[in-house]
């Protein structure tokens, strides 16, 4: 089949456009994607297994895509050892097996790596989740080097879209690294890394990043630092009024009130968030926490129970459930019963990757 010249303005025959839809990228990809959106990770494992056995995967990149879904599903189901085995079945991610130019008949005129980037990222995360933190952290830093090499190669010659994707990936890796240091309470490193990001040329002052900085400062106890960071966020939000940013500013304010033990004002901020966006799960959860500190255990339980009923796909997360169970344990001498009711409901509604050990039954 003749392919048109490689130029952004080129027209492609819509009937054979390989980028028209998900399914034209890889067989049944829209179905896989849909299952992932619904959190049906076990179904994904079944589908991958079936597709492989029925030999439906014809092109080299099909195998990689399906493998990525498999690894992702196993990881979401916390089967990290299995995910690791699956990953190790690939020889060398940088080898010629996974490059377009190795198959010129299948990918005429295309060169580069066909490895989905999330595979590389999960490859770093798995050792961390398996308790081999240093190995994982090393991999993350090496991945950062690789991403930066790719960025350098593309800065001079390449297309904007490609550059944008790699910049996004650079941010992804750096944020993951910061998160790992944060988890291990290595605060000085976190502050340095965020400082680099904030002063970097590509980013500018990002409201969300500044808010994260504020949260870390709050964790340390540096209240003045946090206030400074949050006021910079307000400055950005003033120029760009969106609900997302307005809620961010409110939630940040609420945290400052909470730290000052002014729980009433914190609750008020969270209620404003919920009015603007009834799916703001952080505001809902945190409002319930504040009610506890206001001696209102009954209402804090109601807030969480209502949110699970009304918007479960947004509020059903392990942290919220842990909080609700803590409240049940305080409110009821015989809390086993009510936790069981909750647990049964979760089993019917929750996605496959929900960690039900959070109910502590």
């Amino acid at each position, binding site marked *: 089949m003749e392919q048109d010249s490689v130029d952004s303005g080129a027209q492609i025959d819509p009937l054979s456009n390989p980028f*028209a839809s998900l399914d034209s990228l890889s067989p049944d990809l829209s179905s896989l994607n849909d299952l992932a959106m619904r959190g049906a990770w076990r179904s994904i494992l079944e589908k991958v297994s079936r597709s492989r056995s029925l030999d439906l995967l014809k092109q080299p990149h099909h195998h990689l895509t399906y493998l990525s879904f498999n690894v992702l599903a196993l990881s979401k189901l916390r089967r990290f050892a299995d995910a690791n085995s699956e990953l190790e079945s690939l020889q060398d991610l940088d080898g010629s097996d996974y490059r377009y130019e190795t198959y010129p008949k299948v990918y005429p005129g295309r060169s580069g790596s066909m490895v989905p980037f999330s595979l590389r990222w999960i490859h770093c995360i798995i050792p961390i989740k398996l308790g081999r933190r240093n190995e994982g952290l090393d991999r993350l830093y090496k991945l950062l080097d690789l991403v930066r090499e790719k960025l350098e190669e593309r800065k001079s010659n390449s297309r904007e879209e490609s550059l944008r994707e790699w910049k996004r990936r650079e941010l992804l890796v750096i944020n993951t690294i910061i998160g790992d240091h944060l988890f291990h309470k290595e605060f000085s490193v976190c502050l340095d890394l965020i400082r680099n990001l904030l002063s970097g040329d590509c980013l500018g002052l990002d409201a969300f990043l500044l808010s994260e900085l504020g949260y870390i400062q709050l964790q340390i106890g540096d209240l003045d630092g946090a206030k400074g960071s949050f006021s910079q966020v307000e400055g950005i939000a003033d120029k760009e009024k969106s609900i997302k940013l307005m809620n961010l500013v409110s939630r940040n304010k609420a945290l400052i009130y909470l730290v000052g033990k002014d729980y009433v004002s914190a609750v008020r901020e969270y209620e404003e968030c919920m009015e603007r966006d009834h799916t703001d799960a952080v505001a809902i959860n945190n409002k319930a926490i504040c009610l506890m500190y206001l001696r209102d255990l009954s209402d804090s339980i109601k807030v969480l129970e209502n949110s699970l009923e009304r918007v479960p796909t947004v509020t059903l997360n392990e942290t919220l459930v842990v909080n609700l169970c803590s409240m049940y344990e305080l409110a009821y001498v015989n809390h086993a019963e009510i936790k069981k009711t909750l647990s049964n409901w979760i089993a019917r509604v929750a996605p496959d990757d929900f960690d039900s050990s959070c109910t502590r039954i």
Partner: protein
Amino acid sequence: MSSSQASHSLAFRVMRLCRPTLHVDTPILVDPSDLLVGEDIYDDPVAASHLPRLMGGLKVKPSGDAADLSYRNRFLLNDSTDSMGLSGLLLLPQAFGAIYLGETFCSYVSINNSSNFEVRDIIIKAEIQTERQRILLLDTSKSAVESIRAGGRYDFIVEHDVKELGAHTLVCTALYDDGDGERKYLPQFFKFNVANPLSVRTKVRVVKDTTFLEVCIENHTKSNLYMDQVEFEPAQNCSATKLNADEYHSEETSTTRETFTPPVLIRSGGGIQNYLYQLKSSSRASDQIKVEGNVLGKLQLTWRTNLGEPGRLQTQQILGAAVVRKEIDLQVVELPTTIILGRSFSVHIELLNLTERELGPFEVSLSPDDLPGERAIMTNGLQKMVLPKVEAFGSRDFHLNLVATKLGVQKITGIRVYECNEGKTYNPLPDMEVFVDLE
């Protein structure tokens, strides 16, 4: 009144209410471009012109009130900062945890009526008991709680600043009429231990005329401590200045300077931080510290941990070095440049009274040799020179006649002053080296 052996309608439930924590956990979330296609596909210009629309369409949330029945938030990245895993979600304290001296103990207490009957006239008390004392936190004797219905609750929050180390017990008691009209008494005990969060080590150093106080703070807690305030409060006649090393700050842009001041954060489990104070006497006479009983002052420490949880401690009085004050001093006014062996020479000395009282009379002499024959320079003439009284802050000149008995570099040493009234001996003059020549 029944004892606590009988079954109770009421039960106390407690939960420590230290600050909540901001939950941190790396989520497994992906961007569609990182999963559905190869990483270098955007290098292909055809792909680059078509994929963004396709991928972008996957990330769009259903608008308005249309119920989103997908768990997309558990699959797709919204912002790049999502992968940091710090969403801002708060988590209630999950365990009692450690509690340290200087912190505030705060607890949610809930009295549950798990029976099928209403209980009435409930008198509730909560107190903290330690080895040394009992502190009442709550007492509803004056206005008893009227009733708690079946399945109902009465809640309260107690707070107590922890000022003692060791075993503490939160004692909660309820005196109530149960469903049968029987007056019952329910005591419940919740024990916890208070540990020492810090150790403070001090060193006092006197360098020339200035007194320095070195302070080393070591963190024994399980959290990093953000030191809000480490202030030295000097005793009455002193002033103190904190000395800071010139810190090297890597290049700061104007944006980051507003965001950052490097925090003083003492690492958990053994981290240390040092501080240095310069102490000055505020009394007029001299730079020497004159202190009563050598008390220099005390340290005030305030710190914060997670979400600003505060702690505060004061040290005991810090004592200065054993002898810091000089009462009298000798200063050499004039010493001859050439000293000839065997020939008498005169040293012009001034005696200073540094106290605010009259001292004297004095006897000035050379202290006896440790080893006879060792001393090269001896007094010529009277072994003791008597000086009359010297008034407060006053001085007196005198000349000491000495003779050298050996050649070469020799020391004038051992000049001592005996204060006859108080019977004290001073050796205030350091050794002086002179060169003894022949004719």
